[in-house]
């Protein structure tokens, strides 16, 4: 294979990796603070895609505004979900909280998917892109909408990492992730942080859906495959670890793109594209459940 073709695949992998990181980070923050895997994450991503589609497409607002709208809307939705469904679990109002958390988020996924199916129908829609045209990097040619979306996603991730490190709210989130009770003892409102974390996680999923909507189209089941990728990413990086999620995402992006190129039978390689990550997921879960970068004590 030529260097240009290889470079193209690596760049594609990097772009896809940025998308995966955005979706996976939300999952990781929610797990870190609330100790639950959000099985409705893909549907929050999908709702974000539809929010962007409605605001930018149907209402005709500028795409950057639609992106912000999707972020804010999903932030509010996430906080409401935490308040209504997740908080009772931490207040001892629910029997068998572990099983409850899995089933309630899965139930939420069913609800959101069918709700959007009822409202918008099963058809795919293409919302307006953030940026049109092509970008040439040396000999490489990349489509502009992908690059712009990935760059914005990267920016959002950088902003998030900064907020988690530098602001009081970010420190509170990290403190509750480490130890909920001790955090409460030193005066952190763990309920507020729980709500904030679910809101933030949902908003990140929504932003990912809004950014990827113009590239991969918007439809009610659009979240199913990306969220499975996000699971792969967080498990690769260790559940609850933010740097782990970013590294895991970049790794998965590369694995998928290179595996597709390196497997000789092209049609088959493409047909199985979504399965590589899953095989990786199963392998990591069986051989190193704490993830490649996670600590053993953090595993369930």
């Amino acid at each position: 294979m030529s260097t240009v073709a290889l470079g193209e695949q690596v760049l594609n992998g990097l772009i896809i990796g940025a998308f995966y990181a955005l979706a996976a980070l939300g999952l990781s923050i929610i797990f870190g603070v609330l100790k639950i895997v959000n099985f409705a994450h893909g549907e929050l991503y999908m709702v974000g895609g539809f929010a962007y589609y409605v605001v930018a497409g149907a209402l005709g607002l500028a795409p950057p505004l639609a992106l912000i709208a999707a972020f804010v809307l999903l932030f509010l939705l996430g906080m409401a979900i935490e308040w209504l469904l997740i908080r009772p679990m931490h207040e001892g109002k629910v029997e068998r909280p572990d099983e409850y958390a899995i089933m309630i988020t899965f139930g939420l996924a069913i609800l959101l998917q069918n709700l959007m199916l009822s409202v918008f129908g099963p058809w795919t829609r293409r919302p307006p892109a953030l940026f049109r045209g092509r970008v040439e990097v040396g000999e490489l040619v990349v489509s502009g909408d992908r690059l712009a979306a990935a760059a914005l996603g990267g920016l959002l991730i950088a902003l998030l990492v900064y907020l988690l490190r530098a602001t009081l709210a970010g420190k509170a989130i990290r403190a509750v992730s480490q130890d909920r009770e001790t955090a409460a003892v030193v005066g952190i409102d763990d309920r507020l942080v729980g709500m904030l974390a679910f809101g933030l996680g949902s908003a990140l999923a929504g932003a990912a859906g809004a950014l990827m909507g113009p590239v991969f189209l918007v439809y009610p089941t659009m979240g199913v495959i990306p969220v499975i990728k996000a699971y792969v990413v967080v498990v690769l990086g260790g559940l609850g670890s933010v740097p782990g999620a970013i590294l895991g995402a970049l790794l998965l992006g590369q694995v998928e793109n290179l595996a597709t190129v390196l497997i000789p039978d092209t049609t088959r390689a493409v047909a199985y594209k979504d399965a590589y990550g899953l095989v990786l997921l199963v392998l990591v879960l069986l051989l190193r459940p704490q993830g490649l970068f996670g600590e053993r004590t953090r595993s369930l």
Partner: protein
Amino acid sequence: MRRHRAALAGAFLLVVLLVLPLAGLGAYWTYILAIGFYYAILSSSWSLLVGYVGRISFAHAAFAGLGAYTSALASTGLGWPIALTIPLGVVVAALVGLVIGRLCLDLHGAYLGLTTIAFSEILRIAITAEYDVTRGSLGLAAPLLFTGDSRLPHYYTLLAALLAALGLMWLVLRSRIGLFFNAIREDEEAAASVGVRVARWKLVAFTLSSALAGLAGGLYAHVLQLVAPSMMSIGEMGFILSMAVIGGFHNIFYAALGGILLEVVLEALRQIGEWRLTLFGLVVIVILRYSPNGVFGTLARGLGLERGPR
């Protein structure tokens, strides 16, 4: 006394189901009820795992698909009689269940959920991709279970399979094994410390549950005459979960009734289109949050067929 009344209610329901198609229930609704029995086998065998052993698997629809594809491929490809291919599907589902269970039952809670989703999607992707063998997303035609005009043999076969599945699970649950399951659900380490062979019984539950899903899938293939990858989708899994949760996933009989109920309601509400599935999602969430015993668990308690909080 309570036992008596519960048994009486069950016997009454059974008689109604036996007589209904003969008492003027049209061919269409007979068919719908038969499909309801398919879902009842799935939801009750899923609740065996969730309600009794405390393990949540998202691969149940995939195991049904495994049974269906095995039976369809063996009957059309190899020309075997259906009487052989359906049991073959059961065996394949049980064996794959055994292997998957061996690999991942040590994982806890959400990790098991993630692994089973991954397995289920890998299987669906592989079946969709291997077009030469499976005809991909077009689906594979399967011969009819009983040829002839009457739908009645299908109805009674599925009903008999449901009763056999429920009977088998009931026998297992009322034996010592049922107690082991309960002990594992309550506290795995405590159970192990008093000598319960935790790994073995978890594996038994997972394999039995998978085998019954394979049975349901095999029968379904030859009633529907078509097997498609969509029967293994996450959406279909959500449907099975909804049935078990709405019926009451702490009891195999309630979960089975949930399967029949939802299939019938689904057909009855056909004119509201996709909104009925939205409604199911909402009901699932409300039940999980406020009434985790499900519709039939709550009803049984209200009628005094079952004791209060366990």
